[in-house]
């Protein structure tokens, strides 16, 4: 009994919470390098376990059965999902995990509202933070689900908009959610108003994300991640839990920073990403996007010869390579070429794949050596000295229209200048446009040869072609 009471002392529990958030920060700082990253993540996980244990010691009422049910349910869903998800589906997985976090936030706020009879006898700031958490949590939950649906291709990836009235409608609905919150702070205890606020926030979450094109989705997920972090911090104010505040603020800050880095990688402002400029430009310039020239198609044997007699080959992997699971075959090709004395490097666009660093994960999975992966700024000056640029399933990130045509929806986005290399081979399934839905003049360039077909099969043909020479 004595031991139990010691374990339940407020100061002891506070110390556990301090240990927990110290481990979060230490763990996150471990994520700064590939060698310490695994450990960093595990350290953060240990911190989380400590925080959960401390909370369980802290609790007054029992309700253990309900806790066990909730945790068991969450584990039964979360663990298999995390274990089975393919590396290519990682962005939507993160979106989904982020969404449920937001869902938890607004449900907790709702329970608090009901427990206190509409914040009766609570200080104003309590209501303000709780309502903030409810609105942001709901927006994040629904927005993340839409992002998931788009990336999983359950919903069309193209922007779905209400046209010009979109911003007006969004504004009205946001105002409605805020108005409900203000009414509650001003003294209403009506649960109906609270539920209306949740519904308005849900509609807002849908409307904000639906018009955003699939290519911009990672930025949105990152932003929603930051939002959920802030909502978690607000929950911390509501429950007077500093560990929630610290963790929420950490995530809010990191998510914001990451979102800014991602928008910068696409050379667009965050406002431009969020407020559907993509859709508008496309509608205006869509008809003018016809390029002149002919497509030159080649056989794998031709490409094998081209590659074998090159001095320097730069592989530009894109999402198409990942979908076809061709990364292992690509590494095999690189090994064969290196045996023939060809220098092989990989050019990684910051937003290649569907999230920053996504392509690095996929190539690391295929045992591609870390130093061979070159970031955009390092590899771009090398393209003029490159004999063959091998573009595998990438499209928008090598589209010269981003550099040359002010009318293009992706104008200004930094790209890999593959068109400056001596020869370009583009491996693609068909002439279809990329994720952003824009035509690519690179494919019609006279230096460019197109190798149509499934990326994995084509690369395997190249491997046997190179071996045969």
């Amino acid at each position, binding site marked *: 009994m004595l031991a139990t009471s010691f374990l339940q002392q407020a100061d002891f529990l506070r110390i556990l919470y301090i240990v927990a958030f110290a481990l*979060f*920060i230490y763990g*996150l*700082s471990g994520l*700064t*390098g590939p*060698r310490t990253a*695994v450990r960093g993540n*595990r350290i*953060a996980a240990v911190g989380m376990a400590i925080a*959960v244990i401390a909370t369980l010691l802290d*609790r007054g*009422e029992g*309700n253990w059965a*309900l*806790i066990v049910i*909730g945790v068991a*349910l969450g*584990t039964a*869903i979360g663990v298999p999902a*995390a274990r089975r*998800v393919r*590396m290519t589906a990682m962005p939507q997985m*993160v979106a989904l*995990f*982020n969404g*449920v*976090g937001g869902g*938890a936030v607004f*449900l*907790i706020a*709702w*329970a608090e509202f*009901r*427990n206190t009879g509409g914040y009766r006898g609570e*200080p104003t*700031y309590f209501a303000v933070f709780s309502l903030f958490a409810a609105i942001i949590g709901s927006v994040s939950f629904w927005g993340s689900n839409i992002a998931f649906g788009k990336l999983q291709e359950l919903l069309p990836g193209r922007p779905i908009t209400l046209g010009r009235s979109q911003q007006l409608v969004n504004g009205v609905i946001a105002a409605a959610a805020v108005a409900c919150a203000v009414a509650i702070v001003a003294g209403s205890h009506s649960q109906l108003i609270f539920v209306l606020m949740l519904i308005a926030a849900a509609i807002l979450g849908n409307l904000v994300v639906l018009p955003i094109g699939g290519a911009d989705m990672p930025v949105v997920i990152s932003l929603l991640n930051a939002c*959920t972090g802030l909502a*978690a911090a607000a929950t*911390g*104010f509501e*429950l*007077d839990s500093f*560990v*929630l505040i610290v*963790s*929420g*603020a*950490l*995530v809010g*800050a*990191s*998510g914001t920073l*990451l979102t800014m880095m991602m928008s910068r990688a696409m050379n667009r402002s965050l406002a431009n990403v969020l407020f559907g400029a993509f859709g508008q430009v496309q509608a205006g310039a869509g008809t003018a996007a016809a390029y002149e020239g002919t497509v030159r198609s080649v056989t794998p044997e031709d490409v094998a010869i081209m590659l074998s007699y090159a001095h320097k080959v730069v592989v530009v992997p894109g999402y198409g390579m990942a979908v076809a699971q061709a990364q292992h*075959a690509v590494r*095999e090709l690189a090994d064969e070429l290196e045996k023939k004395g060809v220098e092989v490097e990989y050019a990684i666009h910051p937003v290649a794949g569907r999230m920053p*660093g996504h392509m*690095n994960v996929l190539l690391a*999975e295929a*045992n591609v050596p870390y130093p061979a992966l070159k970031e955009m700024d390092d590899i771009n000056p090398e393209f003029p000295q490159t004999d063959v640029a091998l573009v595998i399933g990438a499209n928008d990130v090598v589209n010269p229209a981003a550099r040359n045509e002010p009318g293009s929806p992706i104008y200004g986005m930094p790209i890999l200048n593959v068109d400056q290399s001596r020869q370009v081979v583009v491996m693609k399934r068909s002439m279809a446009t990329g994720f952003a839905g824009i035509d690519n003049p690179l494919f019609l360039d006279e230096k460019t040869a197109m190798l149509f077909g499934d990326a994995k099969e084509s690369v395997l043909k190249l491997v046997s072609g190179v071996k045969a020479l």
Partner: protein
Amino acid sequence: MLVTNLTILVLAGFVGFAVISKVPNTLHTPLMSGTNAIHGIVLLGGLLVIGLAGNSAFNKVILVIAIAFGTINVVGGFLVTDRMLEMFKRKPEPPPAEDAEQ
């Protein structure tokens, strides 16, 4: 109380910026996933509120859902990050037999 908590919020925000600004581009996806797992800390909120006296049946239902959601966020988030990061580890050269399998 409010002022102390606001102090904590602001300081933690700056710590977040400082720590994370050093993360290289290549680790952004795991970082996003890892921080995503950390905001699963809202699970604690669910645990605290469900422990209070006087929760109605409806409250219990939504809190169990909240706890399940929080658990998915935490457990799934850390596991997925771990899987991703494992791939960045320097691995021994795979034996040729395994190579042929791929």
